[in-house]
């Protein structure tokens, strides 16, 4: 789990990036969500030893990064930071699967290594796609899109409230941690009992806050339903965006472009 301060910073940064004004950002969120889903499903559906066929799919993230004006280094960093679990499981592949699948000159590459790299590539692409979705659409717009696409309103409202108060609570928690660390001199770290007490305090304050928020909602006429204030509109060319990219993904899933390219090149080498 990342540290508290960095989380605060991260949420704020992603939020700022998502408020940029490019044609990608302006698109209807539902289109972006759907296109991302098609992308992910296609990438994930490849067999475990595919690498070359995966590469052309990079065109979608590259497209969005370029036209959405996204900070590449920042996104790459976030993706690599999250890699550990996939790496942890994936690393068993080279150890267990020693069958050599590929001879490149004197070097034999085992199926295990191939599937490991495939896993890494898949990870970066799918997880990157999710990050890019938020970076180009913004959390609120994604939630609105989800609601329009049939997700129960209670859950969407929950997503919105959670996000809103994330900043407040992360702030409170970090102040508590800081206050505690300023008073702990042995540096032995937080024990379970102290944690229980800290978390307990935070919890009680949180529940009080919830009550006050509820009061504020009642004071402004809340009756159990949350009403949206901005309608969403999809334009014609955005539908073409979705259909076009989806068709491309399916095409790339079915035909291995790089291999074809490689064959061509090999044909020219005497």
């Amino acid at each position: 789990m990342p540290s508290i301060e960095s989380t605060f910073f991260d949420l704020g940064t992603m939020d700022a990036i998502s408020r940029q004004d490019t044609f990608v950002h302006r698109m209807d969120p539902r289109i972006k969500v759907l296109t991302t889903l098609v992308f992910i499903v296609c990438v994930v559906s490849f067999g475990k030893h595919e690498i070359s066929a995966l590469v052309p799919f990079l065109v979608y993230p590259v497209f969005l990064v370029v036209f959405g004006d996204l900070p590449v280094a920042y996104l790459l960093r976030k993706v690599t930071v999250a890699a550990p679990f996939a790496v942890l499981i994936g690393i068993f592949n080279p150890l267990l699967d020693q069958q050599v699948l590929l001879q490149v000159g004197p070097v034999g590459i085992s199926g295990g290594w191939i599937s490991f790299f495939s896993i890494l590539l898949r990870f970066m692409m799918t997880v990157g796609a999710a990050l890019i979705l938020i970076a180009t659409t913004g959390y609120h717009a994604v939630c609105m899109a989800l609601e329009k696409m049939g997700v129960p309103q209670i859950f969407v409202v929950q997503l919105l409230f959670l996000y809103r108060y994330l900043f407040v609570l992360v702030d409170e928690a970090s102040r508590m941690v800081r206050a505690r660390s300023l008073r702990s001199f042995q540096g032995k770290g937080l024990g379970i009992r102290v944690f229980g007490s800290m978390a307990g305090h935070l919890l009680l304050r949180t529940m009080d806050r919830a009550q006050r928020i509820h009061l504020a909602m009642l004071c402004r006429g809340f009756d159990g339903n949350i009403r949206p204030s901005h309608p969403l509109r999809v334009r014609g060319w955005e539908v073409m965006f979705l259909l076009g990219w989806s068709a491309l993904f399916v095409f790339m899933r079915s035909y291995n472009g790089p291999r074809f390219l490689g064959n061509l090149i090999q044909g020219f080498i005497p």
Partner: protein
Amino acid sequence: MHMADALISPAVGGTLWAATAGLIGYSSRKVKQDMDDRRIPLMGVLGAFIFAAQMINFTIPGTGSSGHLGGGLILAILLGPAAAFLTLASVLTVQALFFADGGLLALGCNIFNLGFFPCFAAYPLFYKPIAGGRISQRRIVLGAILSAVLGLQLGALGVVFETFLSGISDLPFSTFLFLMQPIHLAVGIVEGLVTAAVVVFVWKARPEILEMTAASKPAGIPSFKKVLAGLLIAAAVTGGFISWFASTHPDGLEWSISRSTGKQEIDPPKKGLHRLLATLQEKTSFLPDYSFKISKNEETAGDAWPAVDSGTSLSGILGGALTLITLVLIGVLLKRRKKPHAQH
């Protein structure tokens, strides 16, 4: 503990998403029926609380390593299963979207593994009967530890199944199982202790909070019998499915086994870690043909192997590398050209 998109197949991911979507729909209906609209802001801030609390690390006594709170159980205790499930699902969604925690396809699996089991199984089966009615410190600790352990064991089991059935990772089922379960037993005990610590604190400071949730029938608690019946049915169906699969598709099982171990020929394990794993594998395997020394049926294994011959693979590498370089170059060039127009 979190599944990643890279390790699941669309079939597994899709199935788990269907289950999760169903649960979200069910829970939403239950919470709405509950009619207590105080719950709406409460769920939101408690979700934020769990999120924040997860970032505070504590040291586990005796080991010196650090751990952090999972939170599903605390939510279930304070909100009841349905609301807790929604809250946990929302926290995992934010983590998947912002912190690259696994990915969007795996989100369905994660919500199921980390949400369903603590909220709809562990809590009603253990915590509520033990510490839900008459409350005392001992009951809280006992209930919390048992529930946390059960919830995490089931969740870990879920991860193992999902990984294995997807076929992307080469980890054999039994090895993975025997690695995950003990680790999560320990994690479960710690989670139980930490949950108990927080709940006891709240109970001592403001007992009315716990009494309030104990008295009201929080939305979505199915009766003990129903939960037990549900689990038994699920176990029977799963067991039945696996044995049907094994009996009607003997080659199929071999095929999936050989896929997950990748062996076509008898090959002595090499030294070091590989041999350790192989030994571990042999010691822990309980399915008959399931070992590194693969099937007598080389044909089956050979057929099942994806047709990869070095000729096509070399082209793959060449073409792939070329495509990659081209894409990256185009991207960089386009970005450079845009820079002067970018507003900063």
